[in-house]
């Protein structure tokens, strides 16, 4: 069930929200867990059993680990739990990829290929696995004691607002909210949550969906058939589409979380205003960045490694794995490699120059990121590379470019909102609108009314998207 679907907006959200609101505090968590199970089962009716089984196993493994006094046993249980989760992710997400590549190699040597029935990727597995890992690792590191209530643990993993596409919430960030959030849960929180949800819905439905059609057109065609400006427009369309799509979804998740009393961590912070790739990764998919830093980069030695070479290797490795986390395709690995390359370059010398600049650094970083998205978007490395080459093939340059009004609006809105904080008072306005939960009555009313309008217009767009009747039926 997608947040941007009629069934979620018209059935699931109002019913769950109302019942949650009227139920006593004691019953709220169990009701939210049941709602989350229903939410996930709707989209993955078989895989829900796998999640329920592994979360049960994980819960008891961590309990045993916590109670265990012997360090060796603790470590063994940690390894067991990590293997369970990583194994699950590997099986469902990466087996197809590896076997496909092994078979490709085998066919080169005329050897028999491995027979394999493709595994279907369960929705949200990358997010839920990473959260399961934070639970066991945070408890192992004594950052937080485990949850004593089995259902609370399941709720942490299955909580529907963030189950499908994050934000990836570390256990230590949410553990205290599982029962302690009711002290601060109030009407303003629900209202602010709804407004945040509506803004996210608008970003996804009204901006990202329009840009998706635009970008798909260019990425679908052979790069050779495009002019230089076509290639750039397609790449820019996708650059804004992915931002408004993903950040819109994160806004919806954060908003829903608030409506149920949770404070989820932010996932985006105006990434296209970054002055370097290093800064970009502090602003883009922040919860993944934080996860990678805490559970991969620091265990590898972090910044405290002995040699610069090792540091560069670690950085690159983290970004290759980060790319691979996004999808089991070579293009994602290349994308990770590409970002790792720029990060290493920045560590070596580039960052010093970029930090001095303002607009130039923002534009430079934006172009680097845009080129990266071309690899991310294409299905094959070959096509992506040809596309990038055409972006710089100025022999093919022509200003002969036209697009329809919808794309002009979508581009205009996406550029404006992407760089809004660079404007005078931009940051102050953003902080007031998004992060001030105690607005006075008039601004709050205006915020609610605007959010309701966005909600209604988005719902209208969702339900009408495929409604294109014929004037009359011709045989």
């Amino acid at each position, binding site marked *: 069930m997608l947040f941007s679907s009629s069934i979620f907006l018209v059935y699931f959200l*109002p019913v769950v929200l109302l019942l949650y609101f009227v139920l006593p505090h004691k019953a709220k968590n169990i009701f939210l867990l049941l709602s989350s199970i229903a939410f996930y089962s709707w989209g993955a*009716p078989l895989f829900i059993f796998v999640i329920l089984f592994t979360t049960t196993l994980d819960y008891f493994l961590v309990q045993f680990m916590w109670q265990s006094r012997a360090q060796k046993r603790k470590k063994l249980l940690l390894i067991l739990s990590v293997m369970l989760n990583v194994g699950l992710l590997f099986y469902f997400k990466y087996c197809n990829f590896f076997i496909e590549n092994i078979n490709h190699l085998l066919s080169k040597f005329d050897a028999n290929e491995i027979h394999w029935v493709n595994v279907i990727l369960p929705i949200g597995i990358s997010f839920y696995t990473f959260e399961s890992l934070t639970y066991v690792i945070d408890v192992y590191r004594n950052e937080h004691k485990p949850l004593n209530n089995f259902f609370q643990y399941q709720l942490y993993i299955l909580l529907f607002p963030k189950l499908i596409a994050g934000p990836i919430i570390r256990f230590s960030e949410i553990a205290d909210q599982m029962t302690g959030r009711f002290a601060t849960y109030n009407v303003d929180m629900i209202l602010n949550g709804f407004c945040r949800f509506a803004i996210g819905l608008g970003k996804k439905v009204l901006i990202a969906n329009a840009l998706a059609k635009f970008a798909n057109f260019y990425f679908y065609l052979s790069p050779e058939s495009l002019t230089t400006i076509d290639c750039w427009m397609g790449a820019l369309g996708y650059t804004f589409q992915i931002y408004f799509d993903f950040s819109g979804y994160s806004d919806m998740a954060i908003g829903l979380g608030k409506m149920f009393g949770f404070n989820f961590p932010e996932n985006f912070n105006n990434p296209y205003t970054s002055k370097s790739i290093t800064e970009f990764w502090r602003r883009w998919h922040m919860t993944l960045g934080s996860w990678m830093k805490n559970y991969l980069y620091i265990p590898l030695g972090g910044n405290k490694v002995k040699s610069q070479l090792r540091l560069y290797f670690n950085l690159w490795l983290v970004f290759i794995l980060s790319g691979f986390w996004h999808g089991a395709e070579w293009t994602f690995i290349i994308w990770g490699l590409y970002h790792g390359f720029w990060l290493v370059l920045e560590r070596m010398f580039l960052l010093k120059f970029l930090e001095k600049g303002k607009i130039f650094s923002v534009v430079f970083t934006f172009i680097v990121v845009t080129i990266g998205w071309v690899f991310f978007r294409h299905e094959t490395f070959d096509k992506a590379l040809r596309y990038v080459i055409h972006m710089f093939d100025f022999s093919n340059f022509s200003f002969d470019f036209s697009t329809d009004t*919808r794309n002009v609006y979508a581009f205009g809105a996406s550029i404006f909102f992407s760089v809004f904080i660079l404007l005078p008072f931009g940051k102050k306005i953003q902080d007031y609108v998004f992060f001030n939960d105690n607005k006075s009555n008039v601004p*709050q009313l205006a915020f609610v009314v605007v959010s309701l309008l966005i909600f209604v*217009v988005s719902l209208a767009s969702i*339900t009408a998207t495929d409604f294109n009747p014929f004037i009359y039926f011709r045989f």
Partner: protein
Amino acid sequence: MLVLVMIVIFIPLLEQKFGIFDRTDILYGSYEIKKDTVLTPENWFNRRYQQKKEDFVNENFGFRNFLVKLNNEIEFSFYKDLHVNDVFLGKNNYLYGNTFYQNYTGRTFKQKYADSVFKTITQLNESLKAKNVKLLVCFAPCKESFYPEFLPDTNLAQVKDVNFYTYYQKKLKVAGVPLLDYDSYFRKLKPTAEHPLFTQGAVHWTTYGAYIALDTLLRRVAFETGKKVNTFHIKDIELSDTARLGDDDITKAMNLLRRVNTEKLAYPTIEYEHNNDSCEKPKVMIIGDSFFYGLNNTWIPGKVFSKETYFLYYFKTANPFDPSKKGGPVEELDLNEELKNTDIVILFFSTGHLDGLPYGADKLTKLK
């Protein structure tokens, strides 16, 4: 404020369940209605239940029709998006049908195919003649040929010299097949017509245009059959800002909150020239497209033609003039029987639909 939010997010569900408000806000156009589904363990686990339920809810929640209109209104006002299949926007908000346009440009024209169709029509003419039945070919105009000046410049540049209409028109004249060429007739009328013959928001001729066409048709049927057919003249005209009947067929299917038509449209009141009982009522078989509906909507053909008359829509659906008879597929009709005593067969198609001729009407040549 929370109450306001709750009302807004709850109202579609409440309206769907209890139908609190007026539900006359229907959507126009031809579209498939999604059906609700029943839950079974099998369709739950293979996700068909979920998919069908989502489709059903998406089309049936409360105020959905209003929201579709709201969305279409926004998208038309801001982006000029139409949300109707097979239609595009010309200058000054003139709307055109793509199928008509393709035929008008000549892109669909294939000479070999046109020659075979022409041969079929001449054969039909001969075989009907042998049965003492007349044939009349009527070419209703298409909006593209009537209002080429409102076509987008890029579209206009693609018009070729020959299309099915220009080709058949010349050939049928030479072959002596009776032809009523409304396409050229309407273009001749255009500079002097007192009221719009075509309008911005419809692909078909206006109601006023249909009256003009019907007047010509009745006189031509009288001439061809040699029968005294009751004709009429326009007694009075009512001018209206609101389109009626099919005069806003596209804008209706665009499902907007407001109408885009800006012209005053004419709605005639007629007077028959003779006492209906003193006239003969020819038995007619009309094989045609939706342009004939415009004529039929005046109710005049039902009065001046025999009750045994049939309108065979695209030669697929039989619409009897006799209200006591039921319509149905043409295959279920005994064509041999129906052709007996028929005075005239009329092929009535728009010049924008000639790519599909003879639409199965060649079956009539094979009848005994």
